[in-house]
Each structure stands twice: as C-alpha cells, then as structure tokens.
C-alpha cells in the first residue's frame, strides 16, 4: 500500500476528523486533508488529485451518501475508493451505500483495528 497517497477526510465534527487523521497518521498516511461536508469536499476532489476519501454519512449540506454518488458519477473521480465511517446503522442504508459503490463501511463507534483491517482490504482489492 502506498502511504504517500493523498487522503481526504470528510466529517462535520472536527473531533472526529482529528481522530481519523491521527489513526491514519499512525498507519503511515501523512498526506491528509479535511473537509466538513460533501459540498466542501467535492470541489476539493475536483480540484486536487486525491487518491482516497474517508467520509461520514450524516452531515449538514451535502451528505456522505450523496458525495459518494457524486464521486461515482464524475468520470474524473469515479475511480477514487471511498470509505464510509458513520453512525448510520440501518441495513437499508448499508445496502444503499453498497449499491452506490462504496469500498468500505465502518459503523461508529469503531476501533483503530477495524480501520486498519478495512484499509488493508480496500487497497488489497485495488491491487
């Protein structure tokens, strides 16, 4: 796994962004940027060569699921793997995210171990 990839962490709570950033840094990722909702994240993604997106679902403005759909609908972004880290735990939502093309789904509260396992799996699949 290339640890120099550019990662965008999207969450409306700065504390959660900070936690995810710390965990990612601990796993060796150093090139991390932040956005506080989908509508902030999307232009950042369109403007900069991001390789990976970690996003929350429930955010004011554009929600994570809509950000995922927007990424998949944009030919320039559709290749970017997206990991959802969310408190949303309805089966309906998980299925919806899967159908929208999510690469991983972590339900909050989560552990550092879960994040590592999911990242390994995502990048292993991408080769």
């Amino acid at each position, binding site marked *: 796994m290339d640890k120099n990839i550019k990662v965008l962490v999207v969450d409306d*709570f*700065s*504390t959660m962004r*900070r*936690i995810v950033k*710390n965990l990612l840094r601990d796993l060796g990722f150093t090139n991390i940027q932040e956005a506080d909702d989908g509508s902030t994240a999307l232009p950042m993604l369109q403007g900069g060569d991001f390789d990976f997106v970690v996003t929350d*679902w*429930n955010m004011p403005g554009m*929600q994570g699921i809509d950000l995922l759909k927007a990424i998949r609908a944009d030919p320039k972004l559709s290749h970017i793997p997206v990991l959802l880290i969310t*408190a*949303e*735990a*309805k*089966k*309906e*939502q*998980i*299925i*919806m995210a*899967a159908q929208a093309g999510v690469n991983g*789904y*972590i*339900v*909050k509260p*989560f552990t550092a171990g*879960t994040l590592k396992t999911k990242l390994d799996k995502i990048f292993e699949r991408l080769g």
Partner: protein
Amino acid sequence: MSIDTIGKISLEQAKSLVEYLESGQQEAADAIVNEIQNPTNTELFAEIGKLTRQLHDSLTNFQVDSRLNDLATGDIPDAKERLNYVIERTEAAANKTMDAVEAIFPVLDNISEQVQSVNPAWTKLMNNEIDLAEFKSLCLGIDTLLKTTGKDTQLIHSLMTDVLMAQDFQDLTGQVIRKVIDMVREVEDSLIHMLTAFGISEDGALEAQGPEAISKERPKGIPSVGDNLVEGPIINTENRDDVVEDQDDVDDLLSSLGF
C-alpha cells in the same frame, strides 16, 4: 329537557289570555305567555348555567396547566442552552485529550528511536563482542537515553494528568442531561394531562388523525423518522431488526451482498 315540562297551557290560562287580548290588555296577555314559557326558560337557564360552570372550570384547569406555558417559554429554551453546553463541554474534552495525546506521540517515538539506536551496541556488549570505540559510543548513547527518558516521562506524566482531568466533562454533562430528561418527562406529563382534560385518550388522538395514522403505528421503541432516512446513532439496537448491531453485522451483510 323532557317534552312534558315544555310549557303547557292550561284551560284557565287560555281563557284569561283570550280575555286579555279581546279587551286589549296586551301587557297582561304577554305576561301569561311568559308564565307559560317560564318553566322552559328555567331549565334552559339551568343547563346554560351548568355549561358555563364547566367551561369556567375547564378554563381554570387550563390556567393551572400554565406550567405548560412555562415549559414552552422558559424550560425548553433553557434545555436547548443546556444541551449546547453538553456539546461544548464534550468537544472541549475531546480536544483537550487529543492535544495531550498528540503531544505524547512524538515523545514516545523519540524514546523508541533512541532505544533502537543503542540496541545493536548493547546486544554486542551482552555477547562480549564490543570493542572500546563502540563501548564509548554506547555509553554516550545510554547517557542521552537516560537523560531524555527521565525528562520525557515527567512530561508524559503531566500530559496524562491533563487527559485524566479532561474526563470531568462526564460528571458535568451527566448532571445537565439528567435535568433535561426531567424536563422532557414533565412536558410529556403535562401534554397527557391536557389531552385527558379535553377527554381525548391516546387512542382517540390517533383515531382523530384518521385511519392512516393507525395503520402507520409502529412497534414500540422505533422512533418515527418521517421521510428522513438518516437517523444517527441507534440507541436500542437490540429492540430493532432493521439495524445492524456492530461491525461484524455490517461485514456479514456486505458479504451476503457479494462484497
């Protein structure tokens, strides 16, 4: 009011009435008519009186329920402030903790690096394979390690105390949230009391909304989220079968979908 009591005219009254009218005594005739209708009026007045009293009592009771008004104008805005306080306190605590943790990480990394740097020479020493130059450099390395570790452990100790102290939010926010729970319970009681005062049972209220409301009735414990799919953290996963309980459930569900 029964039919029997509705003003009946007696023969006597009828005769007098005709007499008065014939002789042009209009006032006396009207008086007889009034007299005949009087029993009716008395009952009507009594009935109106009763209703007025009931209305008055209801209004008085409603004023007793001015607590509801206080709740709406005072307690609920106050609860909003309290809950905002909870958000602020928990955010501050999270940041304080992460400040300390983020400050500890590089200190630990530094110690770990120094340990690793003296380790090869130390292993040689233990195996009696060290030469003098290496031994001298090992001594310097260990000297630095001891000095920095002594200083760093003190720093870590004080940062860990910060982490400890940041947990005081639990006590403070717990008290505040308990107050808000009490208030919510009071609002609930007042609303039920008001419904009862107006003679509406819970079922009645549901019926009043039409058959749709009844058919939409949900099993207990599942909140209505309307058309909003997003619900946030699920508090009672064990009572619901439309949600996952943990990450294993998520993984199982996704793998059943071919993920």
